[in-house]
Every structure is written in structure tokens, then in C-alpha cells.
């Protein structure tokens, strides 16, 4: 027993000596926590370093961290298992290398960014011009003094104006996003902040919502013709798809910018106004939804008018589904009742729908190509089933004309030689 105690004391003494007076009062937990704090701070600083001076300090700070904690590498390896001390330091170096690469890329793009800034200013001016023109055109359109031809001309110009504005806003968005690359996940918080600030400065979300709002106003103020809808539906779909691809990026960038603003404001006194990216995006969503409602309302009502104005009684419809059901029901009842579908087929389907409405109806946000083809086939069957005897009349006429023509061209002249012979004695 005494021997065991002596052995224990000896081991304890070795342990005391081994850990030395300088290290004696250190808690392993504190070492771990301190390492974690310094490590996380360094990671964040690498991520947010934006100036060459800040970047230049990073390698020394990594080196300092490594040398300060190298003696505790085994302890830290255990504490942060499965990561190792060397692995964690390596991660910092990799992160720094990536940040440096990004910084270099941004510097290289500096000149291009200046160009793009100039382009942005130009686009801004162009958009303002288009806005003024749009206001003027809408006012003209609302006035009753214009002739029908004049109204059509205004609608055409207004439509072109809206399309041009949409293109310009789109170009503006591209100009802002271009220097930052396509993938938002690759951007640091500082870059996201810069992007968010640019988007806010250019009023991008307000402008996008403005494009939607202009289209809503246009639909409210205009009496459209069948052919107009093809272009309008395409414009709506393109806008919707672009916004779907843009929404999350813009919202994330503005949110990052808001977070940085809030962080910076924490230490300062006074209230800070924080722009609300999410709310602005929701405003675009709402405008887009209203645009769709207006477009649908106008579109299906005008299409319904094609039937009612020709006294063809079809079930009322107000969307793709009910339109499809209405046409199917009409065809079915025409087959069973034996009523003459001539007006429906010839005047409405062939001359109006297939000619002027087809482009809009075939778009995916309306009926879609497959469903349109299906309805077209159904109506064409109805057409064939009712045989038109006039065709026979036309064919017979054509055959008669051809026969007469052929007879006239192939008949032989009879009296050409006799007058020549009779003239000889007088010579």
C-alpha cells in the first residue's frame, strides 16, 4: 500500500513538472474556447476582408494562431474531433486562398465595372424617357378624341414602349449582377452587401414592380384586338420567368445588405432606416399576380365575345379549363343535335381563333400546345362530318372550265386555205 502511494506521488510529481509552472493554471476548456473564438473571428475576417490591407494581414494572423496553439494540437484535435488542428489551420489557409482569388477577380473586373456603371446611368436616362413617353401615350389612349386607327397606333406604340422598358430594366439587372458572377453562394457577405446596395441604389425592385404596374395600367386602359394578346401573353411569361430566376438572388443580396447596415448601426446611436428587400419582392409578386388577373380577365372576355357577337351559344368560360370544356361540350352537342356548325367552324374557329388567337392560346400559361391541338382536331372532325355540297358544285365548275379551255386550244382551224386560193386569179 505504501509502495503504491509512493509510485502515485512520483507519477504526480512527473505530471506537475511535465506541465510546468507556466502552464499549470490553464484550463483545457478555456484553451479550447479561446482557440474556437480566435478561429471563428479569423474565418469571419477572411470572409469579410475587402481591402488589400486587410487581406495582407490574414497570413500573419493564421501563422500566429498556429504557433500559439501548436503545443495544444493534440488537445484541440480531441476537442474538435473529427477535425484535427492541422486540418483546421489548413481550412483557414484554403479559405484565404479562395478569398484572395476572388479579390483579384474583382480587381480585374474593376475597369469593366466602371464601364457598366456608365451603362447603368445611360439605361436610367433611357428608362426615364420611356416613362415619360408611356405617361403621354396612356393619356392619349384614355382620351376619346382619337379615331380607331389613331387608337391602334397608340396601342402599338405603347406596347413597344413597355417592351423596350422591360428590356432596359433587364439589361440594368444584368449590368449590376455581371461583376458578381452567377452563383450567389460564392459571394462573401461584403460582396452581397455591395450587390444589395447597388440594387437598391438603382431602384431595381421598384423598377421591376413598375414594369408589371405599367402592363396593368395598359390592360386597364386599352381595348385590345385578338392579335395583341399573343405578344402580351409572351411578354407576361418572359417577365414571370425572369422574375422567378431573379427573386431569390435580389432578396438575398438586399437582406445581406440590410444585415450589414443593422450590424454597423448597432454601435451607433439613433434610428436607422433599413430597406425591406423581402417586402419589395412581395410587392413585385403582388403586381405580377394582378397583371395575370387583368390579362386573364381581358383575354377570356374578348375570346368569349368572338362567339357571342356571332350568336354562337357556347358555355361561358373565364379560364383555359372552362374554355376547353366549353368547346368540347359545343362540339359534342353539335354532333348529337345535327345543328349546322358552319358559323362555329368556319367563321369563328378557322377565321378567328386559328388565325388570330392561336399564338396566345398555345402558350403554356393559357391553353398549351397539346390542348390546343386536341381541340383543333375535335373541331376539324366536326367540319368533315358536315359535307358541303358546294364543293361538288365548285369542282364541276372547275372541270367544265378546264374542258372548255382544252377544247378551245386543241380544235383545228377549218377555213384558212380557201380564201388564199380564191385570191390567186385577181393577182
Amino acid at each position, binding site marked *: 500500500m505504501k509502495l503504491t502511494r509512493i509510485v*502515485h506521488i512520483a507519477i504526480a510529481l512527473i505530471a506537475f513538472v511535465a506541465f510546468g509552472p507556466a502552464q*499549470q493554471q490553464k*484550463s483545457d476548456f478555456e484553451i479550447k474556447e479561446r482557440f474556437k473564438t480566435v478561429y471563428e473571428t479569423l474565418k469571419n475576417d477572411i470572409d469579410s476582408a475587402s481591402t488589400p490591407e486587410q487581406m495582407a494581414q490574414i497570413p500573419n494572423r493564421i501563422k500566429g494562431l498556429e504557433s500559439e496553439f501548436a503545443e495544444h494540437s493534440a488537445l484541440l484535435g*480531441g476537442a474538435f474531433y473529427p477535425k484535427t488542428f492541422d486540418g483546421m489551420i489548413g481550412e483557414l489557409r484554403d479559405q484565404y486562398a479562395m478569398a484572395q482569388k476572388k479579390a483579384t477577380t474583382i480587381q480585374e473586373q474593376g475597369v469593366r465595372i466602371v464601364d457598366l456603371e456608365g451603362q447603368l446611368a445611360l439605361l436610367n436616362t433611357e428608362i426615364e424617357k420611356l416613362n415619360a413617353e408611356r405617361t403621354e401615350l396612356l393619356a392619349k389612349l384614355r382620351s376619346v378624341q382619337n379615331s380607331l386607327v389613331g387608337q391602334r397606333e397608340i396601342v402599338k406604340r405603347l406596347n413597344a414602349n413597355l417592351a423596350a422598358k422591360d428590356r432596359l430594366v433587364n439589361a440594368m439587372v444584368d449590368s449590376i449582377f455581371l461583376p458578381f458572377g452567377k452563383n450567389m453562394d460564392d459571394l462573401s457577405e461584403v460582396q452581397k452587401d455591395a450587390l444589395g446596395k447597388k440594387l437598391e441604389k438603382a431602384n431595381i425592385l421598384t423598377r421591376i414592380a413598375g414594369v408589371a404596374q405599367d402592363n396593368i395600367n395598359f390592360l386597364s386602359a386599352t381595348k385590345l384586338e385578338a392579335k395583341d394578346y399573343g405578344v402580351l401573353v409572351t411578354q407576361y411569361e418572359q417577365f414571370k420567368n425572369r422574375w422567378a430566376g431573379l427573386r431569390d438572388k435580389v432578396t438575398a443580396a438586399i437582406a445581406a445588405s440590410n444585415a450589414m447596415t443593422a450590424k454597423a448601426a448597432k454601435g451607433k446611436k439613433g434610428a436607422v432606416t433599413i430597406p425591406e428587400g423581402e417586402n419589395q419582392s412581395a410587392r413585385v409578386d403582388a403586381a405580377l399576380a394582378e397583371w395575370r388577373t387583368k390579362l386573364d380577365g381581358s383575354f377570356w372576355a374578348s375570346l368569349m365575345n368572338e362567339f357571342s357577337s356571332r350568336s354562337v351559344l357556347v358555355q361561358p368560360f373565364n379560364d383555359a379549363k372552362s374554355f376547353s370544356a366549353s368547346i368540347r361540350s359545343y362540339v359534342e352537342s353539335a354532333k348529337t343535335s345535327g345543328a349546322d356548325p358552319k358559323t362555329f367552324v368556319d367563321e369563328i374557329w378557322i377565321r378567328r381563333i386559328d388565325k388570330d388567337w392561336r399564338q396566345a392560346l398555345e402558350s403554356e400559361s393559357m391553353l398549351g400546345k397539346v390542348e390546343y391541338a386536341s381541340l383543333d382536331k375535335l373541331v376539324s372532325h366536326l367540319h368533315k362530318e358536315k359535307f358541303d355540297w358546294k364543293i361538288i358544285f365548285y369542282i364541276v365548275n372547275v372541270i367544265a372550265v378546264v374542258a372548255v379551255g382544252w377544247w378551245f386550244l386543241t380544235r383545228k382551224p377549218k377555213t384558212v386555205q380557201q380564201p388564199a386560193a380564191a385570191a390567186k386569179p385577181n393577182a
Partner: protein
Amino acid sequence: MKNKLTQHTRMVTLIVGLAFLLPACSSLSLQQVDYGWPVESVLNVKENNTVSEGRYAISFNVAPLAEKEFEDPNALKGKEIRLLRSNEGMYYITGPNFKYVYVMTPQASELKLRNKFEVSKTGLKKPALNQRDPYVELLDGSDLRLLMTSDELLEEQDLRAEGR
């Protein structure tokens, strides 16, 4: 006579055989197990008097410990305790204001007190447990430093007093 001898020999063989076989069947033991955690865990006591350690997946109720240390089962609610498992597998528990370090043996669904060391008359201020194989080290700021095994407490001054 010969029959009796044979019967006797068989009996002896059976007893000797069983003596070798039975221990072999009864247990299998794996040696050189190291249960030690590299660093202590600092755990907050929840409202229901329990603590849980995520990495090593252990949780237990500390009400009996609070009762023993502070004579109040709820005394540790919202406070922190420090827990470290030694290489031999014992759990060392202490915390701020504790006068003792508790050495607990893990058993089926319980931690049983194996030993407790009085380490402070007035209560620890800023305790920390470190793994110092084969010991567990207790620090309390710069005031106190001692080494423990599950059975023994070795104070630095004791070692020095012995002229080491």
C-alpha cells in the same frame, strides 16, 4: 475395488474440467480501454434539473447532487456544472460554489458515487477539470491546483512537503 477407483477418477476429472471451463464461459473481458474525454464539458442545468452532453450522449438528473452539496435539490437550476470522464471511465463532477469533487461510477441507468473529495472550505470560485493521464486535475483560478484519481487526492503542497 477397481470400479470404485475408476468412479473416483471420473469424478476428479469432471471437477477439474469444470474448474477450468466455468470461468472461461462466465466472462469475456476486453482490456486497455480508454474512456477519457480530451476536454471537460461545461453543462447548463435545465429547468427540470437535468444536464445533457451532446457529443458523448449522456444526460442525467442533478437534483440529488444539489441536495448533497447545497442541501437544496433545486440549487443547481440554471447554473453550470463541469463534467469530465477520466481515462478509467469515472465521471468527475464539480462546479462553482462546490466544496467537493464527486467521482461517479457509471452503472446501468445510473451514476453511483464512488468517492468525493473536499477541495474547498468556502466553495470553488472558477473551477476547471483537466485530463492529466492517469490523473484528473482540478484548478480553481490560480488559487488551487490538485490531482485526483478515483480513490486519492494529491495536493501539490503535500508532494512538496514530502521533499519532492
